[in-house]
């Protein structure tokens, strides 16, 4: 069965012994600072509402302390919510019994961690089969399924190595293989690539996108890096102080930042790789003998095609090669270099 979407509704998390007592106050507008100073409780999540799309990558972005890691841990309930719902296949994860939760974690979710969290006393192969072992899958079958993913993430030949014999990038490949071997509908990735070197990170992002194209799981990806968010995210939610301050596609956020805070963020972004030609094309008449650019291309690709052909303008075509609009090199470059302000 195809993966379903995840609905997070009115989710609150207040850390402290009497968190429940303050939900009403927070709902009424009490701020994080006030809650902390007056009552000694920490506001972790403040009224989170996100519809995470089925079979796509939902990125949750925020700086440290914004509550993003807390949020992802509510989806498999590693952290108990104070109030609210997390719905998957019409079931509220927050209301599951202990045994239902165990089954949900075993069969529906798999998680990749920032610090890898591999089992140091087990080999790569045994780490990868861990989830299946917990489910009670026979060893021969588990090994066969694990081998496929070990090969796929490029660790062929390392099955019998121990985690601390591997580099960080390779360890996270094990983490990814371990999660994928579970064949769960939901893939939770908590800053999965943040601890890696930039080059290896880009590499791993490519691996993830490649695998996702094939599997189409519902992925929840946490990051503090906007470039990573824009590259991976079908949808992005930006968190600050435990609240969602903007959500939408990468392009929506870059073109229309909701406030000063976000426009500061997006200012540094390479807009040529986020904005699609469709956004700036003009529905003018077809230009004869011009270069064609497929709909959905990013501005950077369009600019490259135009300059390669030494053309001033081009036709944008849809999948059946029908022209749906035109762009000029001037508009393309202008859109790439002018940041949106709030």
């Amino acid at each position, binding site marked *: 069965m195809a993966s379903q979407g995840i609905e997070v509704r009115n989710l609150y998390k207040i850390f402290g012994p009497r968190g429940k007592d303050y939900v009403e106050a927070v709902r009424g507008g009490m701020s994080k600072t006030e809650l902390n100073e007056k009552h000694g409780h920490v506001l972790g999540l403040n009224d989170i509402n996100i519809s995470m799309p089925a079979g796509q990558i939902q990125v949750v972005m925020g700086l440290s302390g914004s509550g993003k890691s807390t949020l992802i841990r509510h989806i*498999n309930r*590693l952290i108990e919510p104070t109030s609210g719902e997390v719905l998957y296949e019409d079931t509220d994860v927050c209301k599951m019994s202990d045994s239902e939760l*165990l*089954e*949900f*974690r*075993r*069969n529906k*979710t*798999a*998680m990749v*961690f920032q*610090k890898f*969290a*591999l*089992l*140091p*006393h*087990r080999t790569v192969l045994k780490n990868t089969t*861990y*989830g299946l*072992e*917990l*489910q009670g899958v026979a060893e021969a079958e588990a090994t066969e399924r694990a081998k496929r993913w070990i090969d796929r993430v490029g660790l062929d030949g390392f099955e019998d190595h*121990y985690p*601390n*014999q*591997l*580099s960080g990038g390779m360890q996270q490949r094990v983490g990814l293989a371990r999660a994928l071997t*579970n064949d769960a509908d939901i893939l*939770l990735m908590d800053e999965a690539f943040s601890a890696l070197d930039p080059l290896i990170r880009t590499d791993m992002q490519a691996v993830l996108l490649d695998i996702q194209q094939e599997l189409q799981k519902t992925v929840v990806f946490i990051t503090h890096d906007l470039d990573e968010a824009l590259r991976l995210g079908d949808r992005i939610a930006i968190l600050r102080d435990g609240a969602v301050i903007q959500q939408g596609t990468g392009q929506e956020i870059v073109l229309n930042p909701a406030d000063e805070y976000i426009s500061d963020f997006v200012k540094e972004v390479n807009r040529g790789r986020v904005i699609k030609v469709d956004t700036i094309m003009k529905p003018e008449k077809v230009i004869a003998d011009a270069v064609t650019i497929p709909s959905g291309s990013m501005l950077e690709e369009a600019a490259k095609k135009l300059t390669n052909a030494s053309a001033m303008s081009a036709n944008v075509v849809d999948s059946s090669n029908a022209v749906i609009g035109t762009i000029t090199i001037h508009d393309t470059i202008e859109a790439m270099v002018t940041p949106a302000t709030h």
Partner: protein
Amino acid sequence: MGILTEFPEMGRADLRDFKKGIDEAFRLFTREYGESIENFFFPLLKFLGWFERLIVATPWPLMILILSGLVWAGSRSWGLVFGTIFTLLVVGYLGMWEDTMFTLALISVATMLCIIIGIPLGILMSKSDRTQSVITPILDIMQTIPSFVYLIPILMLLGIGKVPGLIAVCIYAIPPVVRLTNLGIRLVDKDVLEAADAFGASPRQKLWTVQMPLALPNIFAGVNQTIMMALAMVVVAALIGVHGLGQEVLKAVNNQYLALGMMNGLAIVAIAIVFDRVSQKFGKRLQKHSEVIHG
């Protein structure tokens, strides 16, 4: 002024009655339950007796072969194997073979008993802070109270013999394995535990797939300490009738036999060294996954 120079003691008669009351109560308890307690420990007595006879009756060349085999299995070190053979030959040549075997039997059974009771107790302690706060002071008492003090009630209950000796040894030797099992489990990396949770491990699965394997090196350090402490109790156990090297040491003390005392004492040391090296090597081998580290 008297109150400052003379401590305001309990009245002499009251104090005497107080002590007498406790003694009487315990004597009553002994009369009432002594036999059933003795019966309870009877299987242990039978097992220890059987084990002693087995070890003593085994021909010495076969025994040396078996012990060297065990040393090899535990340590994978030829040096240790030859060291053990040499030690045993010297001990036997100096006329201490049988006593050494008795002591070996006592230490083995005591260690087994400590592991069987101590590891589950340590696991229990690691599960709850409350259990830990109850058991920790008891372990402190067991380690610090002079061993002669708990010999008194043991003697009153069970008299002189092998089982009381074994119990005395275990009381002194069990704390390290309990403490280090508890500590080992508590020190397991929180991130790894969270990963086990995220993949849906039940508490039991978590214990056996993550906590115990990762605590094993610490648990083994505890077992090593337990063995060492059991050996330290050999002479005290001899006081209440356990055969072995300890009894010879006692004889030497009573009669001022310097050579006898030294020889038996050094035999105990030799056994201790073999046990210690083998169990340490074995503990290290349990951590082979952490030996090779990515440069």
